[in-house]
């Protein structure tokens, strides 16, 4: 099993490398001069040259690339053009908020979505199933920033139950501030996870070994939870991985709606200000997250499915 995990880890390296390279060159071939962006249109040529030298922008591209990689090796993403802060500091400050939001949202989404899916699967073509279908269709159609905006308007603005913006301090403060944005993302995730749970559970419940369980005299609860859900979790774990990634990308818009600190908010601000090192850092963080989640899902799969465990 250790060898399997190691192989997966090694397999992820080229992907990471490719992503980093793409990000680097995408940032360099951009139209527009970062020095102009940083200093404004009225800057003198001498100022611009000085700035470029300071930021290492005057070096030839391959050299910049080597610097870039060397910096990354020690988690140095360079310095923000706009403020005199290191990008790593900015990321480190914002990352916990994004993680807090994503994790809470995924947890709520699972706790809500899996039982909904089981309910729909066990009441196939009856009311709960139809309700689930409508719920998941709407959940697919409604954009997360819109749902966030509705919740914000209704619960914060009109009812005043939740804060309008910010992230709060301390555990309870954090929870109080994260709950509405997290529910925004979680509702959409639960629609997706519910639909997925329904589909894979229905598939599993038609399998021969479920018939065997029934033939043994197992009750419906045992058949569904012990035999059905456990097997349905196999395809579900891939879906959950996708859902975590979707939550992550959804967090960008939701952070903006609730005016919450986080990597998404940081990234969007940086884009508007053309703060290239920050954009680069944010993009890399998100990309690494994607690779990491995919990797984690591969590894989780090993633990859930004994067949993979043996091959591994």
């Amino acid at each position: 099993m250790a060898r399997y995990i190691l192989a997966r880890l090694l397999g992820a390296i080229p992907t990471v490398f490719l992503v980093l390279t793409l990000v680097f060159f995408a940032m360099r071939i951009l139209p527009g001069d970062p020095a102009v962006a940083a200093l404004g249109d009225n800057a003198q040529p001498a100022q611009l040259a000085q700035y470029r030298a300071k930021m290492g922008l005057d070096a030839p591209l391959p050299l910049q690339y080597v610097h870039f990689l060397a910096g990354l090796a020690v988690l140095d993403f360079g310095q923000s053009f706009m403020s005199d802060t290191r990008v790593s500091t900015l990321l480190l400050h914002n990352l916990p908020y994004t993680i807090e939001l994503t994790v809470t949202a995924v947890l709520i989404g699972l706790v809500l979505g899996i039982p909904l899916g089981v309910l729909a699967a066990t009441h196939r073509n009856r009311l709960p199933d139809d309700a689930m279908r409508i719920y998941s269709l709407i959940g697919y159609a409604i954009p997360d920033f819109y749902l966030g905006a509705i919740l914000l308007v209704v619960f914060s603005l009109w009812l005043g139950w939740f804060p309008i913006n910010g992230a709060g301090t301390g555990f309870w403060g954090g929870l109080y501030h994260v709950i509405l944005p997290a529910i925004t993302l979680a509702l959409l995730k639960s629609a997706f996870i519910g639909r997925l749970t329904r589909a894979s559970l229905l598939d599993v419940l038609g399998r021969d070994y479920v018939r065997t369980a029934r033939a043994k005299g197992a009750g419906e609860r045992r058949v569904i939870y012990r035999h059905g859900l456990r097997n349905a979790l196999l395809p579900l774990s891939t879906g959950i991985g996708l859902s975590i990634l979707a939550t992550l990308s959804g967090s960008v818009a939701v952070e903006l709606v609730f005016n919450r600190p986080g990597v998404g908010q940081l990234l969007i601000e940086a884009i508007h200000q053309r703060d290239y090192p920050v954009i680069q850092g944010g993009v890399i963080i998100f990309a690494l997250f994607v690779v990491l989640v995919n990797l984690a899902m591969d590894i989780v799969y090993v633990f859930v499915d004994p067949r993979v465990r043996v091959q591994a």
Partner: protein
Amino acid sequence: MSDVNAPADIDRLGAMVAREPIAPEPRFRDLVVRVIFARASTSIAAIVVVIFFVIAAGATWIAPYDPLEQSFIAVNQLPSWQHWIGTDQFGRDVLSRLIYGSQNSLVFGALSPLFAAIIGGILGVSAGFFGGVTDRIVRRIIDMLMAFPELLLAILIAAALGGSFWNVIIVLTVAFTPGFARVARASTLAVKQEPYVEAAVAAGVRTPVIIFRHVVPNILAPIVVLMTLWSASAIRVEATLAFLGLGTQPPHPSWGNIIRDGLENMFATSWPILAGGFAITVVVLAISILGDSVRDALDPEVNQ
């Protein structure tokens, strides 16, 4: 984003071609009629989509005001007979902005899946048909792009390119291409193993002829279904980009930036937010119901 349903759909679509048809292919017009009138929800969805098209096409005549016309004496008005959904912080008529915004959504919803289908189709067909190195390279690219949720991919590309009209088209096209490539590849592989294609190859028929006569017609159905489903995604992703300020730029109206403006002004009026999001949701919902129905109609397994 909930587009994560896409991969599952893709596998099903790929398998669709591989299965033997139970009955002779229904004529396309019959199919369309059958799909639309099969269920009430589909009929309603079709009506909504038609209305959406009409509004977008006739925005100039339908909209009561110029969407860009500002009026400092009429800011933040609540709904009234003059302004059905009120006005925004610049005194612009929200309804007119919504109506013009539909043009924006229609253009992105139609163009980006189309481009993605063409590029992805070419990639997928060549990978499936020629195999070998071509296949390996294409599969590698598909897998890499597929690892990213498309919104995230879109944000990353938009971050690099900035938010002009064509850039957004590029962003959406790149985000959707791998899905089409995968379907096209799977379908091509399935068709390639059909006896009549093998026979054509053995008879020495030229490759382009085989591709256009046998392969392309066979993969068209799943590609069209995917285009429908993803035009819904395209509309939503474009709205999200516009909301983030990476898509259609103000003052040009887009459903996404109507909500963005609305959020900045939410203490004065929440109508722009609610109405803008409602428009997106209804249109995306209608298109995806339609797409689902077409897919179900083409997929014999669901019909049973």
